[in-house]
């Protein structure tokens, strides 16, 4: 009986964490929209900087959109724990009787819903701007759908490590971007493989594998990092 109660308690805590973070994000819509517009602007700079030729743009489109997605995720990482740390609610979370890593999954999910999912939904528009065909756009969305949660998960660890550190915003990109490289490689690789008629299933499977590994390991690292940062 007691296990039922604690499990219910855990789920309730998890859900309230998720709802709380979503509510907070919705109250500050400007923050959310800023990183979205950042994503759009970065992608729009490439035709201006590289070439307006559709053939060129089509070749670099998956990479450009993916790199812009990495940078946009980066931009929103600072918000993940900073406010909670400042007003003391983070310490309350650490004191909860539930496993911190599981609760953090709720927080990361909220982050992804607010800053990852919109990127996935916006990507077809940007893909069309850069001349990608229908199949390629579909693939791009699937890779972003699989990849952006990994970005949020790894990013959470980076954000926890740099919490309250001077120059944390720039530092987190230094720590996290190298770890994003595998996701970038297979995210763009899948689209390229799909466009050139090769099999892309392998890439997608690997992205899925990265997601599973990140889901299993990064919450533990994030929890450890938060305890180091707050102690």
């Amino acid at each position, binding site marked *: 009986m007691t296990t039922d109660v604690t499990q219910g308690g855990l789920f309730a805590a998890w859900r309230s964490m998720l709802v709380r973070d979503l509510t907070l994000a919705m109250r500050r819509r400007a923050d959310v929209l800023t990183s979205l517009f950042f994503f759009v602007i970065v992608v729009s700079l490439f035709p201006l900087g590289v070439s307006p030729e559709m053939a060129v743009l089509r070749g670099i489109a998956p990479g450009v959109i993916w790199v812009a997605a990495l940078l946009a995720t980066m931009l929103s990482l600072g918000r993940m724990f900073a406010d909670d740390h400042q007003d003391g609610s983070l310490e309350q979370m650490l004191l909860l009787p539930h496993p911190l890593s599981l609760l953090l999954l709720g927080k990361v999910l909220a982050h992804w819903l607010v800053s990852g999912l919109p990127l996935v939904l916006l990507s077809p528009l940007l893909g069309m701007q850069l001349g990608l065909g229908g199949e390629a756009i579909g693939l791009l969305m699937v890779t972003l759908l699989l990849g952006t949660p990994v970005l949020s998960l790894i990013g959470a660890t980076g954000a926890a490590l740099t919490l309250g550190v001077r120059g944390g915003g720039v530092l987190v990109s*230094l720590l996290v971007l190298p770890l994003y490289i595998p996701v970038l490689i297979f995210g763009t*690789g899948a689209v390229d493989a799909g466009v050139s008629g090769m099999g892309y299933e392998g890439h997608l499977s690997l992205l899925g594998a990265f997601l599973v590994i990140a889901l299993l390991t990064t919450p533990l690292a994030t929890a*450890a990092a938060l305890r180091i940062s707050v102690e």
Partner: protein
Amino acid sequence: MGLKDSIAWYYFSAPKSFYPLAGKLIPWFWGLAIVLTVVGLYMSFFVAPTDYKQGESYRIMFIHVPAAWMSMLIYLVMAIYAIIGLAWKVRLADMMASALAPTGAMFTFLALWTGAFWGKPTWGTYWVWDARLTSELILLFLYIGFISLQSAIDDPRRAAKASGLLAIVGVINLPIIYFSVTWWNTLHQGASVSPTMAPKMASIMLTTMLIMTFAFWMYTIAITLMRVRRIILERERQTTWVMELVSDEKGGRK
């Protein structure tokens, strides 16, 4: 770095007792490093034969390959020290991890630099996006991340823990990164430009390379011990033994 007797393990894991031990060991490792470097460089330039394909330019390999090996080994050792430091709360292990990082970054940079100089005569370009070059570059980023995180946090305890955790995350990711980069590379341009001399390398070349590797290794131990002694003094400056040591040294100089 090794040389910790299993009986004296606990004794020497205290910074206070490790400090004088490190001081005694440093001249030996410097001596070994210098002798091995002199022998290794002599063999590199005068004993090892000229390569029939690459001419004299291949000799940079005797710096390049050992530096690349050391860059990877040091990251691994650093992560092991970080694990020991986090799991058993051994302060000295944290200090060793931070003492190793600059040398690791230096060897990574050296490997990239010499690689570029070797690439120009061999491949006709300073840089190619070869799998090995790319992963070495990413390794440099990981080192820089470790060092910057450490220097950005003022509290040394917290800095050691946070950067230790980062080193562990990095070492888990390294194989994934390496494998991704290799796959990305083979998909994009084929393995046309990798130096495939290892299997048919003359044994004298291999011996020279191993001597140079040991020279670098001994240098790493010597410089790390020197650096860790500074770190010990800095982080333990509130303790009585450091204060006594410093005042003794001041008295000795007068």
